Structure formats: C-alpha cells, structure tokens
C-alpha cells in the first residue's frame, strides 16, 4: 500500500545581496527583482520524502503556493523524482503572512485528501520564521515534529524520528498522519538526467494556454486533447486557485494576514568614524598597545 507523502515547498528569492530596491512601497517583497530558487531546506524535505518512499513505497506529492513561475520548482521536484505536483496560485493569495499561508496550505492538503506524512523545510530563507510548518499542523489538527534530522522507522501507523533540540536531540514517536519540519541533514539528490529530459515538458494549465497562444474558443477542443495527453504521460502540473481549494477569501492573502508591515527603514550607514589601523606590524603593535593600556585586552 505504501505511504502518501506530501511535501510543501516554497520558491524563494535568493536573499544574498538584497537591497532596499527589492522592497515595494507597501513593505512587501518585489520578488521580480531577485533570482528565484528552491528553498534549500525544502529540498532536504523532498529528499527525505524520496528516501521514505524508497524504503516503504508509496508516492510523493509536492505542492507549492506562489506565483505562476513557482512551477519551476515543481519541475525540479519532478526531475528529482516526485510523482505528482501541485501549484497553488491565485492573485488573491498575495501578501499572505504565515497565518494566511498555513490556512491556504491546509485547504490544499484537505483537497489532496488522505496522506500519511507531510514534510516541509524547517524554514524559508526569505523570512526564517519557521512558523508555517507548525501552523499548518495545527490547522490540520495533526501532531508536528520540528527540526527533524532523520526518520528512524515507520511501523504500525507510527513514525519515529530523530529531532534536534537545544543542546541535543530527541527521538520521538508520533502517530500518523503527522507533519515534520526538516533541517539540513541530508544531501538532496541532483536532478536525474533522464527525468530532466522527460519532465521539462511538464506544464500547468496556464503555461499550456500561454504556449498555445491564448485560450481561443476554437482551440478549446484541441487544448482539452492536449491536456488529456499530458496527464496520461504524467506531464501535468495541477494548478489550483483559491476557489479550487475552497478557501475562505477572508482568510487568505492580505485580508487573512494579521501582521502588517508598519514601515520599512533602510539602514543608512555612517561610515568613516573608525580609527584606521594600517595592516603593518607597527600599526597593529600600536593598536594592541592601546587595547592593553585601556584594559580591553589583558
């Protein structure tokens, strides 16, 4: 029978070298200004899911909430070995904080139906909050294990995992279904070359429409045929809107987000106030002398 493993991943802006220009006036992030990547710890979660499937059988479904371009990380998930992918996308999701995001993901998980394990990265590098995992577990009323390093065993409807805690670790057993947040403790496999060739053709409905030059009525039949063909070859990335997952409009996006950004302040650095020490033996000797004299160094 095997396990149904659901992985929630996020496409994130590569946060190295971000400047104030990457922020919009309303305080939200202008993602277009940055290269987008697969959130690193979500890759660890996907790797753990694929290993789990390897050990116990079953299937791995990867879902992400994001703009249409987030389909790119779903294709990457297919290259790595995912069985099925879902893009949860709608303009109405924009501006979501962690509470609205976890609600949205919980609606998607419910639409998937039954699952045994949900895996996600511990945190996303664009916010580092680590909040969405536990919030999603609560919304689905299932237990959570956080900072998971390794799954030890799955047996009799229970899962045993090793989790990091402050100053050590715990081995915890949970009944299934459960949600696990995963840390950087495995090495995500690279994209398979064969799979890459095969799945680079995987598309969402919107991408198929765009490729076909728009949704002309005359083409409707042809598009339906094409969709059927893609689904049959497993090249179909499901695309779910807010309505598709039955989300309450008041609980998603900005309206569903209690936290508001009051203001964003760019930190202006006043430079040149430090004492310049030349990198020479004499220069450094003088510095050490001063530090010792001031009892800063002893």
């Amino acid at each position, binding site marked *: 029978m095997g396990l149904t493993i659901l992985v929630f991943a996020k496409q994130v802006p590569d946060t190295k070298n971000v400047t104030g220009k990457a922020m919009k006036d309303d305080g939200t992030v202008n993602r277009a200004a940055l290269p987008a990547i697969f959130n690193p710890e979500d890759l660890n979660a996907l790797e753990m899911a694929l290993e789990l499937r390897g050990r116990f059988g079953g299937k791995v479904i990867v879902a992400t909430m994001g703009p249409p371009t987030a389909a790119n990380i779903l294709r990457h998930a297919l290259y790595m070995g995912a069985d099925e992918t879902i893009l949860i996308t709608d303009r109405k999701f924009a501006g979501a904080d962690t509470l609205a995001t976890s609600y949205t993901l919980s609606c998607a998980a419910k639409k998937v139906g039954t699952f045994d394990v949900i895996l996600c990265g511990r945190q996303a590098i664009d916010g580092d909050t680590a909040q969405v995992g536990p919030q999603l577990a609560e919304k689905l009323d299932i237990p959570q294990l*956080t900072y998971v390093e390794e799954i030890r065993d799955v047996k009799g409807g229970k899962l045993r995992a090793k989790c990091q805690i402050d100053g050590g670790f715990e081995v915890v057993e949970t009944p299934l279904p459960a949600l696990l947040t995963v840390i950087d403790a495995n090495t995500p496999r690279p994209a398979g070359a064969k799979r890459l060739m095969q799945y680079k053709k995987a598309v969402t409905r919107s991408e198929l429409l765009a490729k076909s030059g728009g949704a002309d009525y005359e083409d409707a039949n042809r598009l339906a045929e094409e969709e059927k063909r893609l689904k049959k070859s497993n090249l179909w990335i499901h695309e779910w809107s807010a309505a598709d997952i039955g989300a309450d409009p008041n609980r998603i996006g900005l309206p569903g987000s209690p*936290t508001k950004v009051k203001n964003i302040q760019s930190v202006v650095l006043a430079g040149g106030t430090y004492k310049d020490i030349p990198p020479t033996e004499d220069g450094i*000797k003088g510095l050490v002398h001063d530090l010792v004299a001031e009892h800063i160094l002893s």
Partner: protein
Amino acid sequence: MSKKIGNVWVFIEQDGGKIADVSLELVCKGRELADTLGTKVEALLLGHNVKGLCPTLHSLGVDNVFLAEDPRLNQYSPIPYTKVIIEQIKKHKPNIILFGATVAGRSLAPRVASKQLAGLTADCTELRIDSFEDKASGQTLPNKLMQIRPAFGGNIIATIVNSWDDPQMVTVREGVMKMSEAKPGRKGDVTAIKVELDEADCLLQIIERFKEEKSVNLKGAQIIVSGGYGMGSKDGFALVKKFAEAIGAQVAASRAAVDAGWIDHDHQVGQTGVTVRPRLYIACGISGSVQHRAGMAESAKIIAINHDPAAPIFSIAHYGIVGRVEDVLPKFVKAYKGHG
C-alpha cells in the same frame, strides 16, 4: 473610549527545573513593556514540580505566575502545551505574549498563534509601544506593540504590527533583551492552573533524549573573535580559532560561516543566533549585514578586519584594519605576545 488593556505574558521555558536564559531576559523586557502600558506581567510556567521556580520569576518583576504542573507537561510537547496555553488565553485575554525563539519556542508559538488566529512575528530584535495607523480600517490604534526585526537579507529594518485582536505574539532570540537586576524577596502571586488533558492530546512519545549544557557561552564572553565568509574555507576559519586561543577569546561566527559548515550554530552571532555585548569584538572577514550587526553592535569596542574597505562592518567599528585577515592575525598575535 479606552478599553482595558490585557496583561503582558511571558512563556517560561524550563528543562529539568532550569529556566532558559531567554525566558528570564523576556521577563525583564515584559516588565518594561507592562510599565509603559500600566499592566501586569504574568508568566506561563508549565512543567512537573516546577513551583520552586516562581520566586526567581517574581524577583525579576513577574506579578503573577500561571502555574501548570502535571507529569505530562514535564517535557515540552506541542499539543498539550498549546492546549493549556490556549485555555488561559481565552480566559484572561492577554495583550502581549513573548516567547523565546528556541527550538521549542519556535514550535509552540506558531501552534498557539494558529489556534488563536493571532499574528506572530519571529526573531524580533526590538520591541516597544507606539500607536499604529491602520490603513485598512482607517483607525489609529494606541498602545500597540511595535515588532521590529531586520528583514530580508539586506539593510532593512521592518516594523511589524498585529492589526487583529490581541494577543500580539512575538519570538525573540537569546541575548537580545538585557537582564535587569533581580530584587530578591519581591513578592508576587501564583495562580495554579487545573490541567485537563485527554489521552488524545498526549500522542507524542519521547523515546530517547540527550541534552548537554552548551559548550559555548558567548553571551558571557568578554572578548570574542568572530569569523565570517571572508575566511574562505574551513581551513581559513581554523585561523580564527587559533587566533582566539592565542589571545584568550571565545570563538564566534557569522551566519555565512555557520551555513558553510565551518563551525556549529551555537557559535553564531546575529539575529538568528545569539546577541553578544563583550568588551572587545574582533570581526574577521565579516562583511557586516544588518542581521549580524544586530547581534554585536553593542559590543564596547569593535575591531573590523576585512580586505574590502567598503564592507559595512567598518561603519560600526571603533578600529578598522583594511587588509588580509591571514596577514593581520599573526601580526596581532606577535604584538600581543610581545607585550606580555
């Protein structure tokens, strides 16, 4: 038309009868916020046989401890802890709840926030009370908690406000808030909570547990030598460790060095690490992102060593050495040894 403001709560994390430092730091910050608001500070203390910790909390300014004692609360577990706390929130309607951003705090706070439908801001580096003009409703809300944190990689500080009903919830890392002086003998109340848990709440079972005291105590260190991505490699980073040993300092690192695997997270200084205030902080090959500076800017003296004169770290340094770290450190050691 001012409505009654709820109290300021602090979640007290304890393990084996020892309170986490960050919880004590948050009690002190909570006291300050409560004094501004004219409310009480109350602590949420969950565990087994932990009543003896109450006087410590009172001495730091807690007016009332909500005490939940039960063998099933001995170790942190998300579902029972959330259930106990949610019941108290519904009953007493606190204005603010502060959590330490520990592994347990980062599991518990979001679970509680989700259940309560409350906003939650992670890793705040500053908290204060101010008014907030809510553009959505057109109302100005007085006495809101300003949740301030560096955001998003660059030199950006965001002020975040929970625009929904209370509680306003945040997490804060260890060392960010300063301890104030304890007043031994300061009196406070203890309110015992009747713990009601079902079997269905206690599904998680801890099979094995290993925990040791942290091997590093950066918070208490007087002299810190810290290495960044500019050290180039694990071998390069070893120079930082050697240098620290030579001058009797503790070793720290920026996030980039930790992420690169050159040293473990216990040594990380910054927004998502620990905040330090040593007598001397020597930053080696650290560019000085706002997140890193948040964790060390209050050091008494800062020496920055970096080959890039434009590195932001120089803007907060007292002494700057523009040069290659691997050239500068041996000269420093030589001068230091020559002195003694």
